[in-house]
C-alpha cells in the first residue's frame, strides 16, 4: 500500500512570535523554521507502517515556496521514499490547499493519507477533513492509535470526553494527534541518503487547480498582554487575596 503524507513548514514551536509593526502579519524574517510537530508524527506513523510491512511506499508532499524542500528532505531522512513540492509563492487558503492535495491523491492513488491534525501556525485543524470530503474518503481525525488490517483502518481518536474507536474502509484520511507516536531523529547517514531521494516540483497549474482567495486577513494584532501579578508568601496570604482582592472564592 502506498501512503501519502502531507507536511508543512512552520515556525519552530519554541519560538515566541512577534506581530509586525504594521499589523499585516507575524514577523517570520530570520526565525527558526521546522517541520510542523503534528506532521512529524504523521511521517513517523507512515515509516512505522512501512517497517511493519503494511506500507510499501511513502510519498511526502508539501505546498509552499522552495524553502519547504528543506522539510521535505527532513521527511525523506526520516524514512519517506520520495517527495513532491507544490510550488506556490504565498500560502493559499485552506480550501485551495485541500484541492491541491486532492489532485495529488488522484494522481498517486494512495491507500492511506496521513496528515497532522493541525498546523501550529494557522491553528486551523481543517485540511485533512476537507481533503477527505473532496476525495470522498472516510476520515479519522485526532488519531492516537492506528491499526491497518483486513483492508480497513481501525483508529482510536482523542475526543472531548475520552477516546473513540472507528473503523474506516480504505483508502482513508487519518490526522494525527500528539499521542500517536514518538517521532524518531534522523541519523546523519539517513540525512545524506535523503539528498539523493527523488523530489518532484509541480505547480498548481499543472495540477489544474485555480487558487481561490476568499479569505482575507485584514490585520494581525498582539493579544492583550497579561502582566505579572504579585508573589505571595504563604497559603494564608493567597487565600486571603483570592477572597478579598480578586473576590473569586
Amino acid at each position, binding site marked *: 500500500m502506498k501512503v501519502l503524507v502531507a507536511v508543512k513548514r512552520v515556525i519552530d514551536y519554541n519560538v515566541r512570535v512577534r506581530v509586525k509593526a504594521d499589523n499585516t502579519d507575524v514577523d517570520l524574517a530570520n526565525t527558526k523554521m521546522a517541520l510542523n510537530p503534528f506532521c512529524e508524527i504523521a511521517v513517523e506513523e507512515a515509516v512505522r507502517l512501512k517497517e511493519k510491512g503494511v506500507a510499501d511506499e511513502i510519498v511526502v508532499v508539501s505546498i509552499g515556496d522552495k524553502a519547504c524542500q528543506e522539510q521535505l528532505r527532513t521527511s525523506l531522512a526520516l524514512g519517506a521514499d520520495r517527495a513532491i513540492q507544490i510550488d506556490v509563492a504565498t500560502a493559499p*487558503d485552506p480550501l485551495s490547499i485541500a484541492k491541491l492535495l486532492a489532485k495529488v491523491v488522484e494522481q498517486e492513488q494512495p491507500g492511506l493519507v496521513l496528515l497532522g491534525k493541525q498546523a501550529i501556525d494557522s491553528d486551523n485543524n481543517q485540511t485533512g*477533513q476537507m481533503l477527505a470530503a473532496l476525495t470522498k474518503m472516510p476520515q479519522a481525525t485526532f488519531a492516537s492509535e492506528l491499526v491497518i488490517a483486513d483492508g480497513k483502518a481501525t483508529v482510536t481518536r482523542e475526543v472531548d470526553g475520552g477516546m473513540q*474507536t*472507528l473503523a474506516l474502509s480504505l483508502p482513508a484520511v487519518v490526522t494525527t494527534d500528539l499521542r500517536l507516536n514518538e517521532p524518531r531523529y534522523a541519523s546523519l547517514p539517513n540525512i545524506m541518503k535523503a539528498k539523493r531521494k527523488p523530489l518532484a516540483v509541480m505547480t498548481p497549474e499543472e495540477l489544474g487547480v485555480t487558487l481561490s482567495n476568499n479569505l482575507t486577513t485584514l490585520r494581525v494584532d*498582539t493579544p492583550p498582554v497579561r502582566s505579572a501579578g504579585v508573589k505571595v508568601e504563604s497559603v494564608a496570604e493567597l487565600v486571603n487575596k483570592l477572597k478579598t482582592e480578586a473576590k473569586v*472564592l
Partner: protein
Amino acid sequence: MTTLVIAEHDNAELKPATLNTVAAANAIGSDITLLVAGSGCQAVAEQAAQVAGVSKVLVADSASFEHQLAENVSLLVAELGTGYSHILAPATTIGKNLLPRVAALLDVNQISDIISVESADTFTRPIYAGNAIATVQSADAIKVITVRSTGFDPVAATGGSAAIDAISAEHDAGNSSFVANQLAESDRPELTAAGVVISGGRGMGNGDNFKLLDGIADKLGAAVGASRAAVDAGFVPNDMQVGQTGKIVAPQLYIAVGISGAIQHLAGMKDSKVIVAINKDEDAPIFQVADYGLVADLFEVLPELEAAL
C-alpha cells in the same frame, strides 16, 4: 442573515457549548435555526427548543447519525446548508471534525475557532497558539465557522419557544463505522465550562499525587485539568489536557500547580480571569501571567490550601 447552528449533544442532553455558539450566531443576525442530528434525540430537540433566541429547531433522527460520524452528518449539513448564510458549530472535537468537511462539500472555506464577530463577514481568531489575533474577512457565499466557546457568553438555556420540525433524512456514506467509546467518568464539572479549574503538571510527580488536587477541587467545585507533560507521563488521561492541542478554558479562577507555563499550555488558559501559580521554580514562565504566584513546594502547600478553604 439566516444561521444554522449545529447542536452538540450525546443523544440525551444538549451540551453547553451549543449555548455559546448560539450567542455567536446572535452577534451575526437574528434568524437562528438549531440542527439536532442524532438517533433517538427527541429529548435534545426539546431542550434545543427552549434555548433563548432560537427560532426553529430541525431534528434529523436516524440511525445513520447516531454517533455523528462526519461522513454521514456532513452530507446532511451540506444539503441543508445551501439555504443559510452562516453555518456554525462549537469548536469541540465534534465541530472540528465535522465542519471542514461540510465546508469542502459546499466549496467554501471554513473559519476555525472564532473569538469575536466584527460583522457578518469579518471575524477574529487566535493564531500561533494564541500569540497573535487575526481579523479575517470571508468572501464566500456561505460562511462556515467553528466558535471558541470561551469567546462568547452562553445564551439562556430556557425561555425560548422554537418550533420543532422533524426532517426525514438518511445519509449513510457507508465507509466508516463506530466501534467503541472509552469515555472518562467524572462527577466534576466539565473542564471547558467550569468556573474554577485546578491543573497539575509534571511537578505533580505521579498520577497518585493528582489526588492532592481532588480535595481542593471538591471544595471549590472545580474541574481538574493537566498540562501535556502530565498527560504524556501517563499521570492522567488526555481529555484533561489544557492547551493549544487540548482544551481551551477561561474560568474565573485557574490554579496552575507544578506547571512551568510553556507557550502551548498558556494558549489554553491565559484568558482566565484570575490565574494562580504554585511552583517551586521562581523563574518558571507561568509567573509572568499569574496574578498571584506562590513559590513553594506543592507537596507542602496543597494540603495547607485544602485545609484553608
